[in-house]
């Protein structure tokens, strides 16, 4: 069981992005161009259809859409930050503990959190703690914990043990080894996990609408229930664009924060 858990850690973590190729690559400009093209195409399509009907007009207006986008970004970002605040320290503590059992159990629980359908988690939580924003955040956090936790553990575990031994051999205290050596070297891997969690969070935040916590899920659900494909499509495309843009920004942050020389 412990062996399985270790293998799990070493094989299935989110890989840091490859920086070779530098800033001026298709990757850097590709994402924003894609997002502009998608949104432009969407607007063109919507305006070319002429005047929306009354139901469509409820959703397809700038005030409503901007409010929903705002809600959506807030809830996703907030959950991702809570995930980082919980999962990174937890990962550090687990990688400090000598016991393989602790890490197997915690990773197992985080696996369960992610493997359980998000809709199930959010509804179970709502039944227990009531509906609303806080419950939605809790569900998103449970869902997003795994990638950051796993990458923090992997990020620290993959450091060449000779480097940490040299650090100890020179008289660094355990906390100095952690903050001066281990964490800086683990940053790329930890950030890659955070990026994954952020994208998860944007996608899964669409179900927050089921427990009255707002977001673009509402637009999608309106489109579905009232059979208005244009509304459904608008909600889905905008969510995808947010996910792509946040991933792109996180990628830039990853490059900026990656220690030089690594």
């Amino acid at each position, binding site marked *: 069981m412990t062996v399985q858990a270790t293998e799990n850690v070493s094989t299935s973590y989110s890989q840091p992005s490859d920086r070779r190729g530098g800033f001026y690559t298709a990757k850097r400009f590709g994402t924003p161009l894609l997002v502009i093209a998608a949104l432009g195409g969407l607007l063109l399509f919507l305006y070319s259809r002429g005047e929306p009907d009354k139901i469509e007009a409820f959703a397809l207006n700038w005030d409503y859409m901007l409010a929903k986008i705002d809600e959506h970004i807030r809830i996703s970002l907030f959950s991702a930050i809570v995930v980082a605040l919980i999962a990174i320290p937890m990962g550090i503590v687990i990688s400090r503990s000598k016991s393989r059992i602790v890490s197997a159990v915690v990773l197992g629980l985080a696996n369960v959190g992610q493997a359980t359908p998000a809709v199930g988690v959010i509804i179970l939580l709502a039944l227990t703690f009531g509906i609303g924003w806080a419950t939605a955040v809790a569900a998103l956090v449970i869902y997003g914990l795994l990638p950051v936790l796993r990458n923090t553990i992997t990020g620290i575990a993959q450091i*060449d043990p*000779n480097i940490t031994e*040299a650090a100890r051999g020179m008289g660094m205290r355990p906390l*100095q080894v952690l903050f001066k050596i281990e964490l*800086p070297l683990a940053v790329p891997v930890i950030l890659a996990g955070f990026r994954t969690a952020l994208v998860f969070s944007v996608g899964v935040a669409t179900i927050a609408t089921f427990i009255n916590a707002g977001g673009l899920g509402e637009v999608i659900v309106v489109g579905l229930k009232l059979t208005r494909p244009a509304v459904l499509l608008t909600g889905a495309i905008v969510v995808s664009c947010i996910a792509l843009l946040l991933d792109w920004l996180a990628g830039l942050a990853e490059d900026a924060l990656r*220690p030089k*020389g690594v």
Partner: protein
Amino acid sequence: MANKTGATIELLNVSKVYPNQPEPAVENFTMTINPGELVMLVGPSGCGKTTTMKMINRIIEPSSGSIKIDGQDILTLDQNQLRRNIGYVIQQIGLFPHMTIAENVAVVPTLLGWSKDKIRARVAEMLELVELDPSVFSNRYPKQLSGGQQQRVGVARALSADPPVMLMDEPFGATDPITRERLQAEFQQLQANIGKTIVFVTHDFEEAIKLGDRIAVLSKRSKIEQFDTPANILANPASEYVASFIGEGAALKRLALMRVDSAVESGNATGPAISRDENLRVALDSVVLNAGRPVPVVGGGRVSIESISAALGIDVSRLGQ
């Protein structure tokens, strides 16, 4: 504890027993190392030589026994303070990849709270000491350096706070043979100037002969089979085990430890002259290349097969037969 010359290291009945292992890794190891002495611990893998060395800076805690540096029991010291006063060089070097060369060398002085100016001056001094130009290398990162250059940085980093004691764990083991020879020669020169007390672990007996003031040949559980100067071990191996370690050609290895000085005889010779400071192995090579005829020595006299044989006590014309 920081001073220019080395310190005395005394290990008394030091043992290391790992839990769940029937046999101790190190058993009753006792050794006194004099200030400024370079002691080589030689033995096969798994004999406990590295464990023995790592107990001196308490990377591995001894199970029993006492270790003293300059009379002070190190087991009573704060282990981080202790380590800041012991240079540590390992085979894999362990440079910090996210720090520049200058930052790497500055680690221990920074831990000791030196002023920025003092650290900067010291880093430059250390890089020059290991023959790396500070203006070129200070701001580079470890991965931009070759293996040999990285190992030089490793040595500079270990020496940066001027520790009286250095521990070196196969420091040149991972480099190619040509780089290794160069690093060994540089290190020999360096040690002649700085005179640290050094415990040097290696499995390469040739390296031990070349660098060591004294060699401890170890067998299982870090048992000392023989602890003596290279010349004495080569001349009188204490046991079959030690002899097997020396392997073939002990006489030739001994020649490499003797200076031309010791075999000069009077008389004339023709051929390329050889310096008095060279070793006798080189002299023998010259004689052989001179078709077995004696070669002249710079400053007068000559060396011949007979004079080399007399110095060694063995007829060298019969070596290799």
